[in-house]
């Protein structure tokens, strides 16, 4: 009978507790979704935008207006010199163009910003052509913009990985320490409930709830931005499951001794911060220097995100991700073993 099954009752209680916390639901489902939508819009619309630059009032300015003012590829703002240079410093404009009495132009821009460099070249080209320069040969462009290679496509598997990490760490680590502080762990210890069943009631739901956490985001991104899902659903589920296992273990380990909320918050930040930064959620982890790579590649989130990108965006098989899944499984096994040995009930 269901009302006499302790495992089921524990899970029902956790679930009710979760569903009655609107904040928890927002941070689990709403926040990652807002992030995908926000970042997706910010980075998908910048591709075809006109190049924006500031033009300093004075000699040569009217020639620039005549040449580029009607070109849809450029947006010109005419400013007094001081204003324009201030806007450049404040990053409100990429390039400032100043004419001179000799008929040439002066470009002000930040050379460490690749976007500014591209803009400078484009403005220079257009002005030179308007002044009569002839191209040596005609060139044409083929623009490639298929779903799967855009920033939003790159981002979504990263956010799914981040979400699964947060789910394991908060859903297990934080919940357990909270129960320890409230003396609930001790109270349960004094009942006939076997300890293994209790831990199962905490870890078990994670191995179900990773599915909505991962797929809610994936489906939303697929519908809104057309993010492709090239791998099979079963493969994606398996990769996410193994990732969730690793983070469930990590959450359990983080919670095994901590006696105070401050302690567990600190531990979780120490564990998660390096992965937020280095594991390639927002940009590829390969951008970090070579000597850091062995360390970064050993992090579970790096491997989870790599595997998710490979199966979601490239349609890779489960087998091809054996290395990543192996590292995740090692994390899971080691963490669970240590956590069960160290776990403090009271």
């Amino acid at each position, binding site marked *: 009978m269901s009302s006499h099954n*302790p495992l089921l009752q524990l899970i*029902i*209680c956790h679930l009710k*507790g979760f569903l009655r916390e609107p904040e928890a639901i927002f941070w689990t489902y709403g926040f990652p979704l807002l992030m995908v939508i926000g970042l997706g819009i910010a980075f998908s619309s910048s591709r075809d935008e006109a190049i924006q630059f500031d033009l300093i009032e004075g000699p040569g300015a009217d020639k620039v207006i005549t040449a580029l003012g009607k070109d849809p590829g450029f947006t010109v703002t005419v400013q007094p010199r001081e204003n324009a240079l201030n806007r450049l410093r404040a990053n409100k404009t990429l390039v400032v163009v100043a004419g001179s009495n000799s008929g040439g132009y002066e470009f002000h821009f930040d050379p460490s910003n690749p976007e500014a460099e591209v803009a400078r070249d484009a403005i220079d080209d257009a002005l030179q052509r308007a002044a009569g320069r002839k191209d040596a040969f005609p060139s044409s462009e083929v623009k490639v913009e298929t779903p799967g290679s855009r920033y939003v496509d790159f981002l979504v598997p990263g956010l799914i990985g981040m979400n699964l990490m947060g789910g394991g760490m908060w859903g297990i680590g934080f919940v357990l320490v909270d129960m320890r502080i409230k003396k609930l762990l*001790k109270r349960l210890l*004094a009942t006939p409930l076997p300890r293994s069943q209790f831990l199962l009631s905490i870890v078990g739901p994670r191995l179900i709830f990773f599915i909505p956490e991962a797929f809610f985001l994936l489906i939303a991104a697929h519908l809104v931005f057309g993010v492709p899902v090239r791998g099979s659903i079963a493969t994606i589920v398996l990769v996410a499951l193994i990732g969730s296992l690793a983070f469930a273990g990590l959450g359990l380990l983080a919670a095994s001794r901590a006696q105070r909320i401050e302690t567990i918050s600190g531990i979780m930040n120490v564990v998660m911060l390096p992965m937020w930064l280095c594991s390639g959620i927002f940009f590829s982890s390969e951008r970090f220097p070579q000597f850091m790579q062995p360390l970064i590649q050993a992090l579970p989130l790096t491997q989870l995100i790599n595997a998710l990108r490979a199966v979601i965006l490239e349609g890779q098989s489960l087998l091809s991700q054996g290395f990543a899944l192996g590292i995740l499984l090692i994390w899971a096994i080691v963490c669970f073993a240590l956590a069960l040995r160290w776990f403090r009930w009271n």
Partner: protein
Amino acid sequence: MTHAIVCSELYKRYETGKKAVDALNGLNLQVKTGECFGLLGPNGAGKTTTVEILEGILEPTSGEVEVLGTRWGTTEDQHLRQRIGITLQETRFQEKLKVWEIVQLFRSFYRHGMTVEQAIATVALEEKRNSWIRDLSGGQRQRLAVATALVGEPELLFLDEPTTGLDPQARRRLWEVIRDLRERGRTVLVTTHYMDEAEKLCDRVAVVDHGKVIADGSPNQLISQLGGEHVIEFSLEKDTTNGIQPADFLELEPVIRATQEAEGFLLTVTQPHLAVPAVLEFLERRQGRLNSLTTRHVNLEDVFVTLTGRYLRDE
């Protein structure tokens, strides 16, 4: 009569860093089946440590424990836990669960027991059945904790300071619940630092101090150990004490014990109708002027003060 709890020579040492604290120093205890037994003592005396060892959630450094004829640490543990119910000094259930949900959860841990509704009715929480824990008062939370302790119909109940921090009305409610359990044949072990509570509830009490039982017996036995059953408390006007010492009163026939208090004197006497005139006559002789005088029955607090020289609430 059989014993529900027997423990002998319990020692418990807590090691924290370099410091070691001895919480229990050879504690002996016997609780008979079917009685309500009180563990009395100030904070830090070792009551909670004792109870948690008896409940099997703490291991003693050394000593023997037998609960319902069984020792902890065997394959029988889960079975033994089916037969006991506990409340901790403090448990905070999840704020956003309802009363009946918590009771149902704890019911699911036990093979046998009462229904969820019976358990809620036993602690008189029917009206709060569908309330979130968040909305319960302190007394209601304690009664819920008791409900989770008795939903498995245990033979033996441990209640660790169930009434601490409750208002008088909530305390009396909880006393009714505990008396009711005792009447239904349950063995109850309750810890408290309220003397009146122990006197009203318990068949027998043990006074614990510095990790040892320093006295045990029925409340009446302990009180009669003092020799007298009445206490006269009085204080004198300032400047009229005239060097009167507590020991001076011992020459009066009915006075058994005399101590000085911050505010005045406290005499333990056998026959108040003889003692009061004797004291008044004595004071007249020594030209002490009374500021106040009250008489009352001896209580467990007096027992504790006599045994330890300290008040329960001193710590």
